Structures are given as structure tokens and as C-alpha cells.
């Protein structure tokens, strides 16, 4: 390694803008365009990266994955779990100079709960009302206890934007975002970059860099090249194949940590062949997760057999450890399922090269047991729609993950839930998960999830395969970085030598 | 009269897909100062190739042998640069198709001027003056206007006048006119031939007039060579040609043309067709079509014989003449 050192000495294209203006600029490479600067309507992971610079949330996640107050000073919950009282930080101002206060919080909640274009309604559906107690206290009344609530507030639903800006720009707010975060909005060129500049009056410590640029690089190799050449300081996602390059470069470091999400296969429980539990099991058991992790990710992913990752409250190492495929067992399952000579099904995947490889590997693995997989690529939007309509045998789609266990499982497996594309319907499972959702005691909650996970594994309703890693690539000149399990880069503390 | 052009044993070959073909094969003739030499023959007999060989303007797959002596020097020995000094200056050409022989994108005036500037060492203004004068000389009405017009604005006859003006513009000693009126209507042809005759009388240039129309030959030429399949088969002055043609081909040619002022029930014909360049007969090239062919005709090619002022390539006259 280290041979690539010439890159950083190549002044020609190394962060050329910085010396020219004497500004400290951090350039962050994103895999895709962040579509919306308005958390109210956002649905993209890439938005969330930018929000970390632009906005603050009521709560945040710390490095251990614990929920900690951010714009909230402190909070209280009534024992029935139905009333939350939040004390807010004082002296915080939005970028437009207006005050952050209880009214603003109420405004944001209401906008998220009732706004016509709000994509936050689902997350906040258990909130009944929000009332201002005093200028820095709000009270939130829940319809029923909802354990993941605070965790929800560590994300987009917890972001407080400037009510004034919203009123001023209306529909166009997403192009004129105003938050309380460490950086203020300068411009966005769709598909290319978002530029933010230092918030001189940041409430939470001095911001050390003058400017943050989020640049879109759809091509992974190019992104890594730019990291090496110094054009980028941080990249959100290092392609697995490029990891050796990053690691081999003395100026760079790789931050590889397990993320919160999972990837797996929806098996359509509502129609043949996967209305047959044994056939589902056969497929589930035939997937060699270790091999997938090794071959496709070079070890930079974790085998999965549940929806929960390390750091999650519901994580159970034993349950999550996949069982190596056993030919006899699978044969048996096939026989039980009435297909002793094997069977075939169609698996929908997305069009990305990585996904194609995954498909090819799965195909190869299942073939040994006479399970013939026909692959069909669908473009992402179509894939989602196909999943929604339930017109498939099997479909590969995972989840980027949230901290609270409920947000990783409820929608996927509860009868009729939003993302339950596999049409899983196990009354007992539904019961367990709904119960866990209202359970505020962590230990009891975990026990419920363990039971649910076991049940789900036995039913093989959804074939979990692996937990993806967060693979940040970073120039060693960047300091002040701390990793938070949601994989989002907090820029407030960053500096550059 | 002095001889200005003397062509001896001219041989032109082309590299083609079916091998090397000899298209002009041992052609001899000469042109004297102030005379008009007619070159007649059917399509494909090598008339144009002969003229292009003289100008050294053959396409890249062609090569020329023999001597072409112009004003005493062998044209084939000149460097390309020297040759450029000859073209347009001492020998000028007029081509068959007035439609396509002018550059459609340049004005008529510019195209004449270009030749003048190239050879006459004059200023641009003088060149323009000369160009206009030439246009007037070829009988163009509105010469000043025509100077600035593009070829497509002119009719065929006018374009041919422009070509003539261009050819005459540097006072060449020889003008090679390759079927200058074939593409024109008879009434226009009459105008152009008239013009050429006039100009020749005024300037005394020699003209090599290529044509397949015996009528044109009769009207224009002093002497004539008749070509067949790349060879000269007969050479004579114009009167003799029409009064007592010698070569069976010439005779056949003359009798196969219907005439306006005489009535014939049947035309004479020459059976068969011209041989292809790569399938030339061994003996006399005309023998397969000749009604008077003798055994020797099919075996040995005849030489061009001298018969008191008339030349003829035919075994029939072997005893009567001497070799040219």
C-alpha cells in the first residue's frame, strides 16, 4: 500500500478550490442525488446525509446507538407511555434568525402529521396531539403507547425546520431549506451537488470548516478515484470491490461498521410455490449466507437471519447466526413440500450490477438442490410496485434500517402492513410484534422480539440474507469524525488539517 | 506550318479489377499550328483517354508510355510542377458536359480569373478585366453581370461559352475540345461551333476536336484521325476522308449514318460490337466485325500504312502503301 501517495501531492487537482480561497471545504461524495431538502417530503437515504449538516433533530443517536436529546433538553414519559413532555434547548436560532421554540416544534409536528404532502404521517400516526406548554416545553399526547417513538424523533420526523421559511416559500420550501444545523443552505444543482456553508452562530459548538459540499457520484470507481485524488474527503459508500484500493492508500481510511438494515428475499406467502411453508424453508435453508458475505462482500457485510443488527435492542446473536445449508435437510424439506425433484421460481431483482451478481450467486446456490431460479431484472420503481401488488414468486428487496426494532420488523411481517410484500400472515406473530411496540420495558421487549424472530425463522416468511455495512471512505486529513450506527456523517464536529 | 504537338506510340494502360488493360495502344498523330484536328470514333475507343494523356490528367490508375512532344519538349518528362505551367496556359481543355465541368460553388468570373491569375502574372483587377473581356469575346450578353453569377444560373449553351472563355483566357497554343457540343441541342451546337470557328480564326490556336459526329468533323476540321479500339485506323485531311475513305471501319461508319439530304432504304451496318479493352482480338482489332476480313487479319495486327498523304491501318492496302 501507500503507493498511491502521489495522489495527494498532485496539486493540480487536489481540492483546488481550497487554497485559492483559503477556505476549509469538506467534500462528501454521495452515491445518488438527494432529491429533497424538505424532511417533510423526503424519502431518500441521501437526503438524510445532507440533513445531518442542515438540520438538528429533537433527539439523536449516540455512538452506541442510544437515543440522546439534541434539540430537546430533556424529556419525561408518563408510565402508560402515552404522554411525552419535552423540554427544549434555549437560545437556538434558525438560519433565518428566527427562534427555535415550542411553537416551532408544534408547527413541525403538525406539518408532518397533517401536511398534504407529508411522508411522515406513517411514523407519527400514534401521535394524537402536540401542545405548547410554555415557550420551551411541549407536550405530546399519544393515541396509544408506541415504544419506537423517541427513536422516530432521531430521524426526519424529529427535524425542526423554520416555520417562517415554510410559510414564506410554501411548495418551494424544499429548494430554500432553513434549519438550525451547523451549516446553512447555499445551493443545490440537481443531480450534481449541494453546497452548504458554515453556520457562524451554531448553538452546539463552533463549526470548524467553512463549507460542505455533497457531490453526487453514481459511478463507484470514479467516486473512489476522487477520494484518492483529494477531490472528495469523505464518501458515503465505498464499493466493496474498491475497498482494497482505499485500504491500500496511505492517505485514506475505511470506516466499516455494521449498519442497521437487512437484505433478503420476499417469498410470496400467498401463492404457489411459496404458500407452501416447506418450500419457503427449503429456499431459506439453501442460501449459504457465509458464502454470500465472503464472495460478494469480501467480508464487509454480516450474515443475517433476523431483521436486527448488532447494536439493536432486539439483536440476538444466536438467532441471527445462519445455519449452514444441509443437503439432507433441504431434500427433506422439498419432499415434505411435495417437490422431491425440486422446483423452480422467478426472482425479481434490481438492475444494479451488484444485485445482478447477488442474483447469479443465489441462482447458483439453489441449483445444487434442484431449485431453479429464473432471474428477472426490474428497474427499482417497478420492483417496488411489483412487490406492492404481490405479483411475484420471490423478490429481492431489503431495508436500510432504523434503530428501533419495531421500525425494522413491523411493516415487513405484520398482516397487511405496508411493506409486507410477501403477504406474511401469522396471527401469533402479529400479536407479538404489536405487543412489543407498546412495551416500554426494554428487557421484556427484547424477549418478545426474540420470540417473534424465532417464529418468523420457522415460517421462513422472509429470507433474511445479510446486514449491509456502512463503508465510509475518508481522507485521513479529516478529523473529528465519530461513527454513529445510522451511518450518517455528522459534519458539525468535522475538521480538516 | 510548324507542328506543335507530336504524339508518338502513345500507350495508355489502366490497372483495373480485371487486370491491366491497354486502352490506347500505339497512337501516332500530330497537330500543326493553327489547324483543327478532328478525332472521331465510337464510344470507348480511347479519344478522351488520349486527350487526358496529353494533359497528364489521367486518373491515378492510369499510366502512359510513348512520347508526347509539345513545342519540342516531351510532356511526359516534365515534372508535375512544370506540367502545371503547361495546363491551362499552353494547352487548354474544353469538356463535354457544360453542366458538370464548372464548379457549382464558385462564380463564373472567379473560375476564369483563377486561370488568368495562375498563368499571366497580373493583378486581381487586371484578371477580372480579362475575365470580362473573355466573356464578351465568347459572345456573352451582360458579361459584367454574368461574371458574378453562378453556373446554375446559366443555360447549357452559356456554360459551354464560359468553358470556352476559360480555355481561351491565357491564349493557349492548343485547345483540346472533348466533344464540346455533344450535350447540346443542335441549334445551340450550331452557335457554339460557329463561335469556335470564329475564335480560331482570330487567334490562330490549334484545336484538337474530339467528336463522334462526322457532320461536326466535316464542318470544323482540317484533318481527321479515325480511332478504333485504342488505335488510329485512318488519318487524312477532311476532304479525302469524305470522298475516299479507305479503312473498312471508316467506310462502314459513314454508311451507317442516315443523312438528311439523301434517302436510303437500308442503312449499312457494322455487325457486332466494339471489343472490350481486355478482350482485344489478336490480329486486326476490327477484323471480327469486318466484312472484308482475310485470314491474315485474324492473325497479325496491321501497321498504319502511308498512302499518299492518307494513313490507314488495314491489310487490304498492304501492297499499295508504305509503312507510316
Amino acid at each position, binding site marked *: 500500500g501507500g503507493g498511491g501517495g502521489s495522489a495527494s501531492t498532485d496539486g493540480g487537482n487536489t481540492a483546488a478550490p481550497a487554497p485559492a480561497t483559503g477556505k476549509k471545504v469538506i467534500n462528501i461524495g454521495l452515491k445518488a442525488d438527494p432529491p429533497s431538502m424538505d424532511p417533510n417530503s423526503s424519502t431518500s437515504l441521501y437526503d438524510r446525509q445532507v440533513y445531518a449538516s442542515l438540520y438538528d433533530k429533537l433527539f439523536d443517536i449516540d455512538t452506541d446507538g442510544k437515543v440522546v436529546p439534541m434539540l430537546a433538553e430533556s424529556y419525561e414519559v408518563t408510565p402508560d407511555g402515552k404522554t411525552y413532555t419535552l423540554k427544549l434547548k434555549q437560545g437556538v436560532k434558525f438560519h433565518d434568525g428566527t427562534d427555535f421554540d415550542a411553537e416551532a416544534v408544534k408547527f413541525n409536528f403538525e406539518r408532518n402529521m397533517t401536511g398534504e404532502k407529508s411522508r411522515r404521517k406513517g411514523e407519527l400516526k400514534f401521535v394524537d396531539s402536540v401542545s405548547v406548554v410554555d415557550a420551551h416545553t411541549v407536550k405530546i399526547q399519544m393515541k396509544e403507547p408506541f415504544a419506537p417513538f423517541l427513536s422516530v424523533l432521531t430521524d426526519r420526523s424529529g427535524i425542526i425546520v423554520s416555520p417562517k421559511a415554510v410559510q414564506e416559500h410554501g411548495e418551494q420550501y424544499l429548494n430554500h431549506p432553513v434549519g438550525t444545523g451547523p451549516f446553512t443552505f447555499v445551493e443545490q444543482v440537481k443531480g450534481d451537488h449541494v453546497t452548504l456553508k458554515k453556520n457562524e452562530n451554531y448553538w452546539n459548538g463552533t463549526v470548524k470548516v467553512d463549507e460542505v459540499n455533497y457531490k453526487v457520484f453514481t459511478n463507484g470507481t470514479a467516486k*473512489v478515484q476522487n477520494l484518492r485524488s483529494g477531490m472528495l474527503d469523505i464518501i458515503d459508500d465505498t464499493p466493496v470491490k474498491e475497498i482494497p484500493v482505499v485500504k491500500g492508500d496511505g492517505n485514506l481510511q475505511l470506516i466499516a461498521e455494521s449498519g442497521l438494515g437487512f437484505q433478503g428475499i420476499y417469498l410470496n406467502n400467498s401463492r404457489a410455490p411459496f404458500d407452501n411453508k416447506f418450500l419457503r424453508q427449503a429456499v431459506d435453508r439453501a442460501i449459504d449466507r457465509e458464502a454470500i458475505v465472503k464472495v460478494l462482500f469480501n467480508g464487509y457485510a454480516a450474515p443475517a437471519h433476523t431483521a436486527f443488527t448488532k447494536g439493536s435492542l432486539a439483536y440476538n446473536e444466536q438467532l441471527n447466526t445462519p445455519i449452514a445449508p444441509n443437503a439432507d435437510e433441504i431434500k427433506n424439506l422439498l419432499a415434505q413440500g411435495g417437490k422431491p425433484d425440486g422446483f423452480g421460481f422467478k426472482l425479481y431483482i434490481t438492475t444494479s450490477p451488484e444485485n445482478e*451478481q447477488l442474483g447469479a450467486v443465489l441462482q447458483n446456490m439453489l441449483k445444487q438442490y434442484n431449485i431453479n431460479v429464473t432471474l428477472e431484472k426490474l428497474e427499482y420503481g417497478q420492483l417496488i410496485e411489483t412487490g406492492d401488488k404481490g405479483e411475484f414468486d420471490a423478490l429481492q428487496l431489503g431495508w436500510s434500517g432504523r434503530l428501533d426494532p419495531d421500525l425494522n420488523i413491523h411493516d415487513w411481517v405484520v398482516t397487511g402492513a405496508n411493506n409486507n410484500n410477501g403477504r406474511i400472515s401469522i396471527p401469533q406473530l402479529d400479536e407479538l410484534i404489536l405487543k412489543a411496540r407498546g412495551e416500554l420495558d426494554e428487557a421484556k421487549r427484547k424477549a418478545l422480539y426474540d420470540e417473534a424472530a424465532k417464529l418468523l425463522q420457522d415460517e421462513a416468511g422472509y429470507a433474511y440474507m445479510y446486514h449491509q455495512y456502512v463503508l465510509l471512505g475518508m481522507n485521513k486529513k479529516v478529523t473529528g469524525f465519530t461513527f454513529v450506527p445510522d451511518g450518517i456523517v455528522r459534519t458539525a464536529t468535522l475538521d480538516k488539517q | 506550318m510548324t507542328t506543335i504537338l507530336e504524339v508518338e506510340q502513345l500507350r495508355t494502360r489502366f490497372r483495373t479489377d480485371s487486370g491491366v488493360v491497354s486502352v490506347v495502344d500505339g497512337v501516332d498523330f500530330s497537330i500543326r499550328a493553327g489547324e483543327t484536328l478532328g478525332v472521331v470514333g465510337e464510344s470507348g475507343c480511347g479519344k478522351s483517354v488520349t486527350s487526358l494523356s496529353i494533359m497528364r490528367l489521367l486518373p491515378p490508375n492510369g499510366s502512359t508510355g510513348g512520347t508526347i512532344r509539345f513545342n519540342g519538349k516531351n510532356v511526359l518528362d516534365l515534372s508535375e510542377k512544370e506540367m502545371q505551367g503547361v495546363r491551362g496556359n499552353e494547352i487548354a481543355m474544353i469538356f463535354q458536359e457544360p453542366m458538370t465541368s464548372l464548379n457549382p460553388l464558385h462564380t463564373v468570373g472567379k473560375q476564369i480569373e483563377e486561370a488568368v491569375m495562375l498563368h499571366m502574372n497580373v493583378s486581381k483587377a487586371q484578371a477580372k478585366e480579362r475575365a470580362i473581356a473573355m466573356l464578351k469575346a465568347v459572345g456573352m450578353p451582360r458579361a459584367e453581370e454574368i461574371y458574378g453569377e453562378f453556373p446554375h444560373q446559366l443555360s447549357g449553351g452559356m456554360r459551354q461559352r464560359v468553358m470556352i472563355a476559360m480555355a481561351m483566357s491565357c491564349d493557349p497554343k492548343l485547345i483540346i475540345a472533348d466533344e464540346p457540343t455533344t450535350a447540346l441541342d443542335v441549334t445551340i451546337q450550331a452557335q457554339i461551333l460557329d463561335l469556335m470557328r470564329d475564335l480560331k480564326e482570330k487567334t490562330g490556336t490549334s484545336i484538337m476536336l474530339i467528336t463522334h459526329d462526322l457532320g461536326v468533323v466535316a464542318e470544323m476540321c482540317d484533318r481527321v484521325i479515325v480511332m478504333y479500339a485504342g488505335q488510329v485506323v485512318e488519318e487524312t485531311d477532311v476532304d479525302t476522308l469524305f470522298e475516299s475513305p479507305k479503312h473498312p471501319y471508316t467506310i462502314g461508319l459513314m454508311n451507317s449514318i442516315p443523312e438528311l439530304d439523301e434517302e436510303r432504304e437500308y442503312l449499312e451496318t457494322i455487325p457486332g460490337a466494339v471489343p472490350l479493352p481486355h478482350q482485344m482480338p489478336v490480329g486486326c482489332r476490327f477484323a471480327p466485325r469486318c466484312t472484308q476480313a482475310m485470314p491474315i487479319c485474324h492473325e497479325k495486327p496491321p501497321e498504319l500504312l502511308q498512302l499518299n498523304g492518307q494513313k490507314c491501318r488495314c491489310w487490304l492496302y498492304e501492297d499499295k502503301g508504305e509503312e507510316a
Partner: protein
Amino acid sequence: MKTVRKFLRNGLGVIGAVIILGLIIVAIFAPQIAPFDPNAQDYNKILIAPDGEHYFGTDDLGRDIFSRVVYGARISIEAALISVGIAMLIGVPIGLLSGYYRGFWDEWVVMRSVDAMQAFPFLILALAISAVLGSGFGNAMLAIGIGFAPAFVRITRGQVLSLRNMEYIHAARSVGVKDARIIFRHILPNALNPIVIQATLAMASGIIAEASLSYLGLGVQPPTPSWGSMLNQAQTLMSVAPYATFYPGIAIFLVVLGFNLLGDGLQQVLDPRARK
């Protein structure tokens, strides 16, 4: 026969024909030529650089790139033939009828549609069509075929327009031959040369287009080894395994070159304009 001999003398065209012949042979005998099953994954042999066993190395799933390239020839040939076949099937009849009958339909419907279709950037058009049809080899072919069709309409129509004024067409009409027979017996055979040339050249573009669509993720279904999809996958390996990008690309290059050379050679021999 003369044409054949003439073509044989056209060196570059012959090279093109030889390349394509070679490709066809490789495609037919792929199972005999390829040392490995193109889809067999060997996780112990991931990303092995080219050596004596794996001539072109292995890819990130441990598949033998050489074998995949060999099998890819099949897809390429099919891509070339099918896409151009579709384009001709659509374009040639429309061009024939439109050019022969002229009039309102020709001027305002057919030609304006052709104009409109050609106003789309080709790849975008193919992309949109294949997005409509869904991914997959057949649909990609249909998309490319539809995308190429306007070119065939144009070239056929152009031919018809020049041929319909030929004396032998007038002759046929004056003899009393019916329109359909004139179109198919007299015009079509004589319009064929430029169409064949265009078809050959279009095959070259067809292969590139298939590769481009595959590159954008809309090509054949995995694990079918198509050169385009191999490149698509190999692009993630650019810095670790450049050879994985190299060989499929070279294969595409060679075949496209083959078709281009052949098309060029045919043009020299068949196109009267270039014949001079």
C-alpha cells in the same frame, strides 16, 4: 459470381467477413471451445488474473471469463441479427409503400414520424422503449429494433424514390404490371443493396446498442453471459481487475469491427456510387 470475386479482392471486407465467420464458429462450437461452464461459480477462484488455466482470468464470482466471452458470442450474434431483423421487418415495408405511393401519408405521417423518432437521442429512445417493455433480451432487441427502424424507412424510401423513376419501372408499368408486383419484384430486389449495407452496419450498431443497454442494466437476464452485461458488472472491478473489463470489450470491438469492415467492403462492391 463477379461480385463475390470483387469482394474477395477487397482486403478489409474479407477481414471483416473472416471475423464474423470466426464469431459464428465460436458461437456454434461454444461448448467445445469453452473450457469451463460459463456460469459455474468457483468461490475459491475469485478474481484470478489471466493465467494458463483461465486465459482471461475469472470474475468476482469465480467464473471463467474466457468461457463467458466465448458463450457471449452467441448473444452477440443474436443481438445483431434479431435487432436488425426487427428493424428491417418494420422499416422496409413502410419505406417501400410510403415511397411508392407518396402523398399525404408518406409526407405527413410516415416521414414526420420518422423525423420525430430521429429527434430522440437513440439511446434514450431505446431506453424508454425497453423501460416500457421491461428488461430482458427479447425486449431489448425489440427496443433497439424499433429504434433502428426509422433509418430503414429512410433508406428504403430513398431507394424507392430513386428507383420509381427508373426506366425499367416505367417499362413494367407500361407493360401493365400491377403495383404489388412492381414493388416486390422490381423495386425491392434493386433496393436491396443499400439496405443490406445498412443492415450490416446496423448490426454493428446493434451490438453496441445491446451492450449499452446492458451497461445501463436493461439487457439480458443474468446469468446469461452477454458482453455488455459482463462489462456492466466489470465496471465495479475497474481498479481491482481491469482484465475483466478488457476482454469483453475487446470482443465487442472485434465483432463490431467485423461488421463495420464487412459493411464497408459490401458498400465498395454493391453500392454503385462507391463503385467508381
